[in-house]
């Protein structure tokens, strides 16, 4: 299984633990990640300013993947959303495709139909499959109670994602967590947005969105919050101190980690390989519970 690994902007400089753990478990599962250094920004950050510019940037990445004849594997929800949407629009709308290709021709690139984009979690869920993952489990995680945060753009909007999961009642990430042996605990507001996209627009609203999520998740006394998007993680992890002091709340160091880090633990991989040292809120209590030094 071969995929073009699309890192996006945030992961290579701020979420290397996500990247490290994704690469480690891919190796274990026989997934071949092809690094393409020419992949740049997906286009999401300029979409609010210019949808057309965003489409051109997305199409540039899609054109590179088409040249290599590879399916794109994304790790970030926003990259997934913008690339998938651009791909759909440009496949279906000839006028738009011609306009975008006119722009791309100036850098000798061309959008071509036929590229596919898959979030890594979806690849694990659909292409690898839960049974295969269960068969790889070497470490007992059954003592763990975790909650998952799907984030937006992973299965929303519905018309982009071939019904691989139900946006109003998603199960894929819960099932992926349960495949490791850990328990996935439901909570109020599970589908709510992290607020990341408006952090720079109005910080107090964004932080309150993240606070509400942390309130609901911690109400169930879980051992950790599992995410699969670097920006959601920034909201719940990097902004934790700010949220705690602004709203005068305490979340007792609830760790936030990426799904591949959890799957890696289940596969018996070393916490160092999985980048746990880079988690800003240390998962010490969780690792202790598992007897991991």
């Amino acid at each position, binding site marked *: 299984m071969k995929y073009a690994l699309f890192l996006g902007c945030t992961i290579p400089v701020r979420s290397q633990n996500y990247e490290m753990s994704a690469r480690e478990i891919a190796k274990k599962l026989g997934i071949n990640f092809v690094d393409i250094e020419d992949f740049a920004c997906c286009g999401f*950050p300029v979409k609010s*300013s*210019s949808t057309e510019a965003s489409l051109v*940037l997305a199409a540039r990445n899609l054109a590179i993947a088409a040249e290599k004849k590879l399916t794109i594997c994304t790790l970030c929800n926003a990259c997934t959303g913008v690339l998938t949407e651009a791909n759909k629009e440009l496949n279906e709308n000839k006028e738009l495709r011609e306009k975008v290709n006119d*722009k791309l021709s100036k*850098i000798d690139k061309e959008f071509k139909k036929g590229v596919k984009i898959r979030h890594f979690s979806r690849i694990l869920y659909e292409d690898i499959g839960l049974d295969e993952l269960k068969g790889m489990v070497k470490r007992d995680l059954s003592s763990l109670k975790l909650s998952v945060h799907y984030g*937006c753009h992973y299965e929303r909007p519905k018309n982009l994602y071939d019904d691989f999961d139900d946006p109003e009642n998603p199960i894929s990430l819960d099932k992926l967590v349960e495949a490791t042996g850990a328990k996935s605990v439901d909570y109020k507001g599970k589908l*709510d947005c992290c607020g*990341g996209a408006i952090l720079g627009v109005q910080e107090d609203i964004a932080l309150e*969105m993240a606070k509400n999520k942390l309130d609901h998740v911690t109400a169930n006394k879980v051992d950790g919050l599992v995410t699969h998007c670097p920006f959601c993680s920034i909201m719940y992890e990097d902004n934790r101190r700010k949220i705690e002091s602004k709203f005068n709340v305490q979340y007792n160091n609830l760790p936030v980690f990426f799904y591949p880090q959890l799957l890696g633990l289940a596969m018996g991989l070393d916490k160092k390989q999985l980048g746990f040292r880079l988690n800003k809120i240390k998962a010490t209590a969780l690792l202790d519970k598992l007897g991991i030094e």
Partner: protein
Amino acid sequence: MIDSKKLDPNFKFEVSKEIGGENIKHCFSCGTCTVGCPVREIDDKYNPRKIIRMVLLGMRERVLKSDFIWLCSMCYTCYDRCPQGVHLTDIMTALKNIAVREGYIHPAFKAQAELVGAFGRLYEVEDFDNKKRNKLGLPPVKKTFDEVTKLLKDSDLKELIK
């Protein structure tokens, strides 16, 4: 108070010509968008039903100059739930796009466009980052992308790109 003399009856047509703005006239103001909106839950200054209504009434200046159009977190909850398929998230994007062309860009998005224009990414990658990546066993990443800079200089964001 709405002053009907200040309304622009063509605004809805203008929005419907934007990418993603096509379905605005389908809205029958049921409010499903507003009820499920995670931003509205926190601050009622952002009210998607009201924004659509303002567009349909032609309150062009007030909408484009407002601070509320920038508050959509693009979560697509309303997009999926809207019974009329208005594609609200895309309408908000269309409104922001028009506002940018009219010179009302929000500083946060201005900064993002400038960064992507300069580095091809939202973050500047410094030598330090690649050294750290190397230590972690990760391959280096490119620091700038001339192609991205060139494409943005050829877009309607060109004035923001150095």
